[in-house]
């Protein structure tokens, strides 16, 4: 349903889509059973001449079980959903794999700033590459992001990754992603952040290793890079 319109481009995007499908099947079943039953009863017990209602309290055992048995089955479905949800959640948000690189993501009214390590592979050194609204990453590499905000709440959302995370001023929130194919996709701010919320957009450019190193060479200042290498 989602992938037909929006590609799944991170390692966990497919897991999230499958979880959504699982929930869709389980609740869809109950939804159609309930609606079917509801409309059938409406039709079957429509008022007719000479027909009198059946007097039941709903507390008779043989009737009450029509409510109680489905009710336990719903509980079973809930358990499946809980297990599925917690597993996906654990992979995406709790258990961060070792990173190949770390990128700092800074939200402010109303732009994204991305800070990437330069050739030395370390953040907060003079050869860091700062970009605004465009994040260049390499396909197949595990990235950690360190998410910050300078003013109000923002939300770092990459729909093709199926990833969202609030940026909270005063905190640094760490998460991860790994892209599975190259391309250029949207970054959105998904938490209202003032009148410019609707223009707070970015692009994520997922590059092949060759493209990415070429981009990096082009953007890191050679003088500083040499200076820090000495």
């Amino acid at each position, binding site marked *: *349903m*989602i992938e037909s*319109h929006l590609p799944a481009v991170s390692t966990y995007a497919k*897991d*999230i889509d499958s*979880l*959504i499908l699982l*929930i*869709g099947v389980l*609740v869809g079943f109950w*939804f159609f059973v*309930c*609606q079917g039953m*509801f*409309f059938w*009863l*409406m039709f079957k*017990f429509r*008022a007719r001449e000479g027909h*009198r*209602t*059946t007097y*039941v*309290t*709903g507390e008779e055992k043989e*009737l009450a079980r029509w*409510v109680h048995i*489905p*009710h336990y089955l*719903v509980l079973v479905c*809930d358990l499946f*959903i*809980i297990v599925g*949800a*917690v*597993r996906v*959640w654990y992979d*995406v*948000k*709790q258990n961060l794999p070792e990173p190949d690189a770390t990128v700092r993501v800074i939200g402010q009214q109303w732009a994204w700033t991305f800070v990437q390590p330069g050739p030395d592979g370390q953040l907060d050194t003079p050869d860091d590459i700062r970009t605004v609204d465009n994040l260049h990453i390499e396909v197949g590499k595990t990235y950690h992001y360190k998410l910050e905000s300078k003013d*109000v*709440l923002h*939300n770092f*959302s990459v*729909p093709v990754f*199926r*990833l*969202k995370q*609030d940026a*909270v*001023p*005063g905190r640094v929130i760490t998460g991860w992603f790994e892209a599975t194919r190259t391309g250029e996709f949207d970054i*959105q701010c998904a*938490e*209202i952040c*003032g*009148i410019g*919320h*609707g*223009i707070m957009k970015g692009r994520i450019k997922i590059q092949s290793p060759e493209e990415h190193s070429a981009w990096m060479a082009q953007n890191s200042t050679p003088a500083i890079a040499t200076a820090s290498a000495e």
Partner: protein
Amino acid sequence: MAQSAQTVPHGGHEHHESHGLSYYLFPLDHKIIGMQYLFTGMFMALIGGFFAYAFRMQLAFPGMSVPFFGVVSAGEYNSLVTNHGSIMIFWVAMPVLIAAFGNFLIPLMIGCDDMVFPKVNRLSYQIFLLSVIVLITSFFVPGGGFGGAWTAYPPLSANAQYSLTPLGSTLWLTAVALEFVAFLLGGINFVTTVMNSRAPGMKLYDIPIVVWMIVIASILFTASVGPLIAGAVMLFMDQVVGTQFYDPAAGGDPVLWQHLFWFFGHPEVYVVLLPAMGITADVMVTFARKKLFAYRTVLYTAVGTGVLSFTVWAHHQFIAGIDPRMANVFTITTLLISIPIAEMCFVYIATLYGGSITFKTPMLWALAFVAEFLIGGVTGIFLGASGADIYFHDTYFVLAHFHYTFFPIAIIAVYAGLTYWFPKMFGRMMNDTLGKIHFWGTIIPFNMIFLPLFLLGAWGQHRRIYSYQNFPELAGDTMQNLRILATLSLVTMLLFQLVFLYNFFRSMFKGEKAGKNPWRATTLEWTTESPPGHGNWKEMPTVYRGPYEYGTPGRDQDFWPQNEPS
């Protein structure tokens, strides 16, 4: 103040007393106060609906000058969505479902002549009216109305330099706080009146479900709103005095507000849901001529839902920066709340079993409530499951989900209640044919508004964006066409509300006379005149049985009023 009209003694009077103007302006009678809440709520619903029209037009036709509004700027857009949400929840759902129906129905359904504290009741409405005035003022102050979403997350809501609405934010917050005070005061009456002033013979299980639900909702409201009132005081001080409760630079924490807000905000959903379910139950049993299936189960599940609703709030904050381990706890509690709610839905469906159903307008609304609310219920599971919420958070999927809960609650159930109790309120019947035209003209466009929004949300459209043309993934024609479909459906639906308004006000004066009990219902309000005079009954009723004795074996009539001696 000349209030001589109210000195009419109880009993032994015709219900056509002539009342002075002050009787309507400063009333103590619960029915008039209920009407004041109802009409204020309806007025606010028109404003909220107009706001929805303005921002939906902007989404469908970005940049166009919207008829009757003008070009919607980004700041105005934020203000429109913020106040649409605030109005529909705080100034429509709450006053109509709890205050209007609560005030009108509680004394009539439990068989007493008024609320126990009529003056507190009047004060409650006056504070509510003040909150309305403050809110409306906030739209017109320099800088414009508040635009930080109805959740008002700081720092955006706390600092004028970020929100750019220095006065709008403060007035909005003041209005919300006043509204809370009004409903705390109202709750005193609802709970104490039901506890202490029931008619002789009315035991706990003889109370109609809708009264129970309003009482449980009042208790939930009181128990959940306190921390938010404290939080609102802190936010107010941050805005006005310059304290830094929510400012991380000075040791504050913006996430604290989110906890306080949702600790209230989630129970609040059930505060409005329960009265809506109560209304539905009362309407369904009357037109199905059936006893409510498992009355006690409904009651227990309502209480269970209420208790559980205090344990789920952080599912709104899965990705808001809370400890990720907490998300697992809240996923479990959130999915557990589906148990009592599912049980309640099953019970409502089972109530139809063995009935003899006539499809009058109120019944159509009640049935539509169950059918539509089911959609809202099942889509909530996607959002309560933490793993899926990572993607769905803040998309139109969320928006469509809660409109499928709030629209049935605040609109469908309210129409069920209004069309059902209209004869009691005004003594005349509404036109059933116009009622059905209005019903289909509301229900079909309603689904055509929000089903496309589920799809847009699933495709990644995020909320509170005044124009999607800035986002390449969201600017395509397919998605834009769905937006246009939703907007045109909304305009259609709003136009059909004119049918209701015409029917409502015409029937009030020209409708067929209703008589005491036009629906042949069993509860106490139908045993007095329509509309009831001051004091409600000439002779106060005594209760002999439960509220829903339809089709009792061995009786000629298929209904057995609560007050009829056996």
